[in-house]
């Protein structure tokens, strides 16, 4: 029972972070119908930016978080300007290949600045590592803080999407770009901000995750695959789906690690992706899509 509750608590915490990564993927996919394959590397850069500011420059945690999010936002915009805007009329393959190019470029740059393969940087913990007891459940206070912060980021994101002008522009563009153009929305600018927002959410999740795990240049792809698994499970176009998918992937992964073996943890995301694509191609909450010709 104690083990189960521990696994569930960990699963929900990491799942919430996967949900954030998935959220970034879904927001970009909804608007542009491409998946940014450099999304994981944007996540990784967000984490390293925060590390540089917090550990090396010794800024407090919250300003480091905000600056890292701003940095990721800028990188997201750069991704749009370099790999999406000039290539969107060339088709999906070109955009995917270009974002893969960017992902390796960023990974190489991170390796130059923050150490070679196998160098894992530890991010200092936010709070004391004392576990908290809620009823029968033991939870690490660190996890609780991360979980609450993740929920806060989701809330901020939801409010931004539903109430602000920019958020409404994004929604309009995602649902019908031609109609959005007709009512005077500058669609390619919206795409740019969409990439920025997606990257900013990835950056925020990296800064939140950093105290729980370690940072290394290859972390981006690991998180990207997990975020993509969550996004696909949720249907790839649904924001609530991404959140549910993220939690499911997190919990599934922890349960598999706890009851089958820890090496399964690394591979559970692949199993989820292949299962979801073959048996649940529209996801749990996705709209049954009409295939365009």
């Amino acid at each position, binding site marked *: 029972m104690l083990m189960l509750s521990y696994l569930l608590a960990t699963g929900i915490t990491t799942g919430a972070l996967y949900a954030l990564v998935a959220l970034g993927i879904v927001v970009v*996919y909804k608007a*542009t*119908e*491409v*998946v940014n394959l450099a999304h994981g590397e944007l996540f990784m850069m967000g984490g390293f930016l925060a590390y540089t500011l917090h550990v090396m420059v010794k800024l407090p945690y919250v300003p480091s978080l905000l600056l890292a999010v701003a940095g990721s936002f800028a990188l997201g915009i750069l991704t749009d300007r*370099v*790999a999406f805007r*000039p*290539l*969107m*009329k*060339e*088709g*999906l*393959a*070109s955009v*995917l*290949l*270009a974002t*893969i*190019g*960017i*992902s*390796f*470029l*960023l*990974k*190489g*740059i991170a*390796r*130059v600045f923050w150490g*070679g*393969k196998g160098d894992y940087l530890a991010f200092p913990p936010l709070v004391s590592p004392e576990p908290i007891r809620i009823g029968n459940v033991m939870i690490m206070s660190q996890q609780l803080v991360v979980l609450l912060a993740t929920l806060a980021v989701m809330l901020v994101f939801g409010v931004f999407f539903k109430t602000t002008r920019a958020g409404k522009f994004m929604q309009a563009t995602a649902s*019908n*770009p*031609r109609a959005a*153009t007709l009512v005077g929305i500058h*669609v390619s600018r919206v*795409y740019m901000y969409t990439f920025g927002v997606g990257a900013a959410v990835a950056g925020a999740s990296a800064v939140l995750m950093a105290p729980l795990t370690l940072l290394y240049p290859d972390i981006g*792809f690991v998180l990207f*695959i997990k975020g*993509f*698994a969550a996004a*696909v499970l949720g249907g790839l176009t649904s924001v609530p789906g991404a959140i549910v998918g993220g939690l499911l992937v997190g919990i599934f992964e922890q349960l598999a690690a706890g009851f089958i073996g820890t*090496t399964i943890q*690394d*591979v559970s*995301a*692949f*199993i989820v*992706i*292949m299962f979801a*694509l*073959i048996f649940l*191609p529209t996801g749990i909450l996705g709209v049954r899509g009409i*295939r*365009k*010709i």
Partner: protein
Amino acid sequence: MRVVVSHRAFLVVLFAALAVLPVVANQYTLFVGNLMMLYIILALGLNLLVGFAGQLAFANAAMYGIGAYGAALLQVRLGLSYWIAAPCGALLAMAIGTLLAFPALRLSGIYLALATLAFAQFTQWVLLHWNTVTFGAGGFPVPQPDFSALGMSPDRGIYYVTWVVTVVLLAFAWRVVRSRVGRAFVAMRDREMAAQALGVDLLRYKAVAFALSGFYAGTAGALYPAVLAYVSPEGFDLFQMILHKAMIVVGGMGSIVGSVIGASLLVYLLELLRQFKATQEIVFGALLLAFVLFQPRGLVYFVKRYVPGWAEPLHYASDSGSSSDVTVADEVVTGSGGGAPR
């Protein structure tokens, strides 16, 4: 004076040079030449699948690994001779490659890309963690085949084997793209629905494309343990994926000679940067990005334009993407008002 070089002459000269390389070169150059031919095989297989058949799959490095591990493990675990193990490894990769065609019939574009990427990572995980069979992360040494009967060192012997295999596979790819199968690939890439209406059996030709590509990658893989005498999971990781992709994009998508050019140049570059992993990632990432942005038809297009006599028909997917799901973004850019031209 204008230099007239036909694309055929280029291939003949290149392979003639590769054939005499062992006579003049030292052991390291011989190794690089051998590696170059392995990558030519890989690039040819990938180009058939991505450049010609338009299936944006990311499992090439995995097929390469399956071929290599198949050939190496059959020797080390079951004590089979290399000459039996190697074809088995290649056929194993081909079989698994063909299986990937089944999801490919249902999935397209982004879903296919990511399903195959996930499969590639899954393969990598199996190589790393199935310790009782694969020896885990450290890899394992593999004995090189014996060429003493021909009076040759193993390095030199396997070099000639690779040379023959590469020439045969190159000629075969050359034939395939000019056959009914090759035309079906291009039709399928350009517009699936139209190809189907013209009687192209999509399942069959997708299966053929994946099988061919798996066989090419598996063959390169089966040669790998004999060339390097060592196999480890690191040789088939994500970086290999981007390397193979960069080779066909730099050389020229939908071009046989382009695959050869891209593979040869990038292997040379890879060797120059051998020591620095970070630099390799930066250079190959930037190279892929730059070619997709500025020269998406690859170097071969450039060559064809400026070298008279170069007459290879190119099959670059000119205006459409390689998948059937046209992005909505397209309409906004191209059709400013009325019905989109698609």
